[in-house]
């Protein structure tokens, strides 16, 4: 009942590097697949797999775009087979960035630059807001949207400025739709809330596919191409910092910021979650985040928590600081202080 096996010498390969066993005869082996010509079906299937892998590799590596800027079949396949950012090799990341640049050029007609600047060693970012100085102008909200290529139709805004009653820290009783003639309104103070890049992030813990993680410089990032859109992270975040693209994002060509980062402000697709990344495309190059630059009152303080001479360290060491929802043990890297 043993099937007719090939009369070629059978070598059972061991683990990588080991020569395997050559002492076993045909009879000792379990029945193998019948042969097709001189090649066993097992070998034939393996060959097919190798061919497919080679094909995908060829497709993914350095394909040139078509003449009319439409994504090529190669690019589409590579898009489909794209691996998780943290698992890609440096070469794969390079190829992916180039492919994304072609994609965005095709989609928007704008020469978008996608980078993957790594974290600066010895840097962990921290942010603080002086609530004596914040007047609720919302200039930070506007600048953030101009910098980070959010969808304009569904009006995704990473920063939410809460108008709070003085004397209470009840965030649930705040109003972020305020629109008085002038701000600040008497009896109110203003709390801008954005992603706090928690050290113990509940969103990272809740992601079922590992599409979001914390980088070495403390920023919690999302691989938009890995996100499946389940929105568990949105439920997990206590600061309402995560936003979802319910629709295909609308972004006019003239409003696009062409300097983007893979983990930051590159244009997103429908069905993925996004959030503030402390402007990773700016801060990893030494620039200040867009919200910081836009604030007219200078209420924002940003810097490296590991540098004892930094402004953010001075705030933490000398000012009365507090964090939101401290009791949830998220350990946010965003503080609020008063003069």
């Amino acid at each position, binding site marked *: 009942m043993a099937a007719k096996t090939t009369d070629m010498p059978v070598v059972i390969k061991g683990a990588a590097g080991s020569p395997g066993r050559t002492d076993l005869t045909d009879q000792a082996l379990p029945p193998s697949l019948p042969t097709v010509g001189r090649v066993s079906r097992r070998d034939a299937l393996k060959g097919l797999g190798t061919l497919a892998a080679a094909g995908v590799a060829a497709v993914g590596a350095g394909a040139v775009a078509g003449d009319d800027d439409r994504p090529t079949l190669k690019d589409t396949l590579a898009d489909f087979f794209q691996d998780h950012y943290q698992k890609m090799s440096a070469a794969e990341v390079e190829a992916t960035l180039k492919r994304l640049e072609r994609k965005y050029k095709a989609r928007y007609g704008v020469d978008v630059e996608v980078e993957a600047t790594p974290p600066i060693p010895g840097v962990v970012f921290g942010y603080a807001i002086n609530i004596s100085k*914040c*007047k*609720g102008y*919302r200039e930070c909200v506007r600048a953030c949207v101009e910098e980070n290529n959010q969808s304009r139709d569904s009006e995704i805004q990473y920063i939410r400025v809460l108008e709070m009653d003085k004397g209470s820290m009840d965030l649930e009783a705040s109003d972020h739709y305020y629109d*008085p003639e002038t701000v600040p309104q008497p*009896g109110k103070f203003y709390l801008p809330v954005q992603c706090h890049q928690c050290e113990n992030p509940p969103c990272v813990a809740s992601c079922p596919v590992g599409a979001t993680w914390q980088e070495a410089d403390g920023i919690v990032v999302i691989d938009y191409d890995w996100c499946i859109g389940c929105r568990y992270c949105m439920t997990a975040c206590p600061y309402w910092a995560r936003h979802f693209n319910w629709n295909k994002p609308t972004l006019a060509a003239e409003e696009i910021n062409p300097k983007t980062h893979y983990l930051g402000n590159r244009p997103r697709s429908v069905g993925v979650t996004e959030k503030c990344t402390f402007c990773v495309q700016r801060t990893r190059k*030494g*620039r*200040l985040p867009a919200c910081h630059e836009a604030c007219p009152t200078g209420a924002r303080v940003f810097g490296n928590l590991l540098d004892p001479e930094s402004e953010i360290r001075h705030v933490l060491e000398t000012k009365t600081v507090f964090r939101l929802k401290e009791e949830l043990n998220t350990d946010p890297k965003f503080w609020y202080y008063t003069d």
Partner: protein
Amino acid sequence: MTAAAKLTLRAILPILAAGLVGAALFAQDSEVPGQLDDPREVLERYRALQVRERGPVLEENGYYPCSDCHDGVEVEINPTIRELMVHDEITLVHGGGRFWCLTCHSEEDRDHLASLKQQPISFDEPFLLCGQCHFQRQRDFFLGTHGKRLGSWQGERTVAVCTECHNSHDPQIKPRKPYRPPQVRSGLQPAPSTHHERTMPWQIDGDDGDEETGEHAEEHGAEEHGAEEHGAEEHGAEEHGAGEASDGGQDH
């Protein structure tokens, strides 16, 4: 001399000593720790900051360089405190009437400001002048917790000087219209403004406390299910603007 008032050296020595110490304390160049003879000395304590030059902005406003007119010839130097016939578009609010122009502007060299001891201070470094009185703010300014930082969070720091945000003649920042509010998500209504409810004792004005809480509690109950929207204008009308002083955030 009477017997009761013998002015011996021994008797007046303590008085002399006190007088000398007093004179020493109030001398121009004092040994009081922390007091600076020259405002520039404060720069030694902190990291060097890059600033943006004020010259171009001041030229745009039409006055700078001031020595074009104030060269001592065309316009005489007149230190008498008076109301000026020119520069009348400037209303000096700063100081509540205690200041006049030459408090801060140099009498001799109008292209510079002057410290309290008449040392010249450049328009590019007004923090040296302002910091003479606003020393806490100045310290915060140098350490990054006051004022607008520009440029980079590492390496050389660039900062906007005081006069880029504050009008030195009327420094208090005025309220302004905010950028428009976010749109309500499709399918949602904004939550009823429960923030009108004031639950802290100090938020309830005078004897009308109960009335207010009662009124709000009623509204809160009715709007629980989103029947009505509280607009911002309604909220504004409920503010007791007359009695309330400006909040602490309004300081300059």
